[in-house]
C-alpha cells in the first residue's frame, strides 16, 4: 500500500484538519471532526447537514459553504459516522428553522442518522431526512436494503442547499431534495480497486483485463465483472440502464454528471462525458447542465460514474444559484 499518510489511525482526522486550514475562509472545525460553515448557522435559514464515511472527498466537507451544506460529518474511512458528531453538526446548522439530513442509503448511515435525529428531536431541533438512493446497479425491493446513494448526492446537496439559501422552509427544502432524488439515477464502473489505509490491501481483486460494472463507492464489489472495453462501450453500459430506469426521453432536459472515482485522469472523464452526451442527444434528450470531475470518490479508485438528473425549470434555477464551497463554486 502506497499512500501519502502517516498513521492510518489518524488519516481522517489529519485530512480534515488540513482541509479546514486550507479553507478557513469557508469552513470551521467542530468537535468530532465536524466541518461547519464559517460564521455559524444563518438566521432563519433551514440548515443542511450531510455526512458519511470518509474517503469520498470532496464529499461532504468540500460542499460546506454558502448555498450548499451548513455542516458535514466525516466518519472513519468508508464507515458511517456515529450519532454524536451528527448531533453536533445538526446543532451547529440549526438557527431555529430546522435541519435537513441528507443521508446516503446505507444501513450504517441510515441507522446512525436516525439515532442522531432522535437525539436532536429530544433537544427540540426539528429534523427532516432525505435518503439518497440513485444507484441503479442495485435492485430495489421491499425485501432488500434498497438502492445505494452514490454520486447524485452532490446534486441533492447543491439543489436543496440553494432552496434553503433562498429561504424555503424545512418542508419545502425537503420536498426539493426528495424531487431531485426521485429524478436522478446513477451507475458506476471501477477499473481498479482502492485500498483503505487501515486494511492495507485493495478492497477487491480485479484482473488486468477486467472491470467492475455497477461499483459502489466503498470499494464494495459491483454488479458484474466484464472484460475491459472501450470508453464508449463502457459509457453505454453505465448510461443505458440509467436512462431506462429513469424513463427519461425525447424532449426532456437533463443534467449530466460524469463523476470520477478519484484516480481517473480528467481527460478520461471528458471522453466519457463526450460519448454520454452524444448518446443522450441521439435520443432527443437535451443536456442542459453538465458537471464533470471528482465529486464523490472512492479514494484512489480508477473509474467513473454517470448520473442523469431530469431537470425542471425550478431545479435549473436552484442549480444555477450561487454556491461558494471548496469543491463547487460559482457566482460568488
Amino acid at each position: 500500500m502506497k499512500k501519502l499518510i502517516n498513521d492510518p489511525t489518524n488519516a481522517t482526522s489529519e485530512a480534515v484538519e488540513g482541509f479546514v486550514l486550507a479553507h478557513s475562509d469557508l469552513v470551521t472545525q467542530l468537535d468530532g471532526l465536524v466541518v461547519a460553515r464559517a460564521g455559524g448557522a444563518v438566521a432563519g435559514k433551514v440548515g443542511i447537514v450531510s455526512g458519511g464515511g470518509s474517503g469520498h472527498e470532496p464529499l461532504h466537507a468540500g460542499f460546506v459553504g454558502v448555498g450548499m451544506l451548513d455542516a458535514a460529518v466525516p466518519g472513519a474511512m468508508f464507515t458511517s459516522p456515529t450519532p454524536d458528531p451528527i448531533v453536533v453538526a445538526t446543532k451547529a446548522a440549526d438557527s431555529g428553522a430546522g435541519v435537513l439530513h441528507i443521508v446516503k442509503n446505507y444501513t450504517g448511515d441510515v441507522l446512525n442518522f436516525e439515532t442522531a435525529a432522535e437525539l436532536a428531536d429530544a433537544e427540540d431541533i426539528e429534523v427532516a431526512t432525505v435518503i439518497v438512493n440513485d444507484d441503479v446497479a442495485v435492485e430495489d425491493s421491499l425485501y432488500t436494503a434498497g438502492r445505494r446513494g452514490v454520486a447524485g448526492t452532490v446534486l441533492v446537496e447543491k439543489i436543496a442547499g440553494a432552496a434553503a439559501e433562498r429561504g424555503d422552509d424545512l418542508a419545502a427544502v425537503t420536498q426539493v431534495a426528495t424531487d431531485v432524488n426521485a429524478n436522478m439515477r446513477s451507475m458506476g464502473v471501477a477499473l481498479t480497486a482502492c485500498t483503505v489505509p487501515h486494511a492495507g490491501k485493495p478492497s477487491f481483486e480485479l484482473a488486468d483485463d477486467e472491470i467492475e460494472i455497477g461499483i459502489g463507492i466503498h470499494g464494495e464489489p459491483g454488479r458484474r465483472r466484464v472484460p475491459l472495453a472501450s470508453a464508449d462501450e463502457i459509457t453505454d453500459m453505465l448510461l443505458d440502464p440509467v436512462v431506462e430506469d429513469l424513463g427519461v426521453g425525447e424532449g426532456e432536459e437533463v443534467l449530466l454528471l460524469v463523476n470520477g472515482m478519484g484516480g481517473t485522469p480528467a481527460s478520461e472523464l471528458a471522453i466519457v462525458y463526450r460519448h454520454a452526451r452524444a448518446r443522450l442527444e441521439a435520443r432527443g434528450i437535451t443536456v442542459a447542465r453538465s458537471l464533470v470531475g471528482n465529486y464523490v470518490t472512492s479514494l484512489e479508485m480508477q473509474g467513473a460514474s454517470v448520473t442523469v438528473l431530469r431537470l425542471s425549470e425550478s431545479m435549473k434555477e436552484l442549480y444555477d444559484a450561487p454556491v461558494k464551497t471548496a469543491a463547487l463554486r460559482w457566482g460568488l
Partner: protein
Amino acid sequence: MTAQLNAAWARRFIDLATDVVTTKRVDLSELDRAIGDGDHGENLARGFAAANRAVQESEADTVGGVLKLVATTLMSTVGGAAGPLYGTAFLRAAKVSNVEAIDAVGVHTLLDAALEGIVARGKANAGDKTMVDAWTPAVEAAGEASAAGESPAATLRAAADAAARGAEATEPLVALKGRASYLGERSVGHRDPGAESSALLLDAAARAAAEDSA
C-alpha cells in the same frame, strides 16, 4: 449463589470480547472485504477497546449497568451498520438486566432482548444473511437450556455454540440486508461478518461465565 452471573461476569465478558475482536480483527475485516467494505473487524476493535476502557473506568455494579455503558460506547465509537445494531442490542439487554445477578432464565431474557433490538433497528429477517442469523438460533438454544434447568454458564455455552453454527450456516445464503445485499447471488459462499462476530461475542460471554463458575 455462585451460579448466577453478576457485574464481574459482565466485565470479564467485555474484556474477553475485546480480546477476541482485537485478535480476529483482520479475519473479520477479511470476511467483510469479500461481501462488504472490509471494515467490520476494524470497527469492532475500535469500539470494544473504547467500551472496555469505559467499563474499567466505571464503577457500574449491575449487569445492566455494565452493558449500558458498553451500549452507549459502541453507539458512539463503532459507526457503520454494526455500531447502531450492537449498540441497540446491548442497550435492550441492559434494560432487562439491571440487577445485581441473573440466572439462566435471565440469560435467555437478556439475549432475547438483544435480538429484538437488532431486529427493531435493522428490520432483517432470519435467513437474510446478517447477524440475526447468529442471534436467532442462539436465543432459541438459550431458551431450551434455561427451560431444561441448565446453569447460566451452560445456557450461554448452548447459545454460543448455536450462534457459531448459525454463522456458518450463513455461507450458502443470498444476502438481502446490509452491504452484502448489493452483491445479490455473488454473496453466496461467504460467511456474514456480523454473524461471525456475534458468535465470537457470545463465545466470549460463555467463556466468562465458565470461568466464573469454575
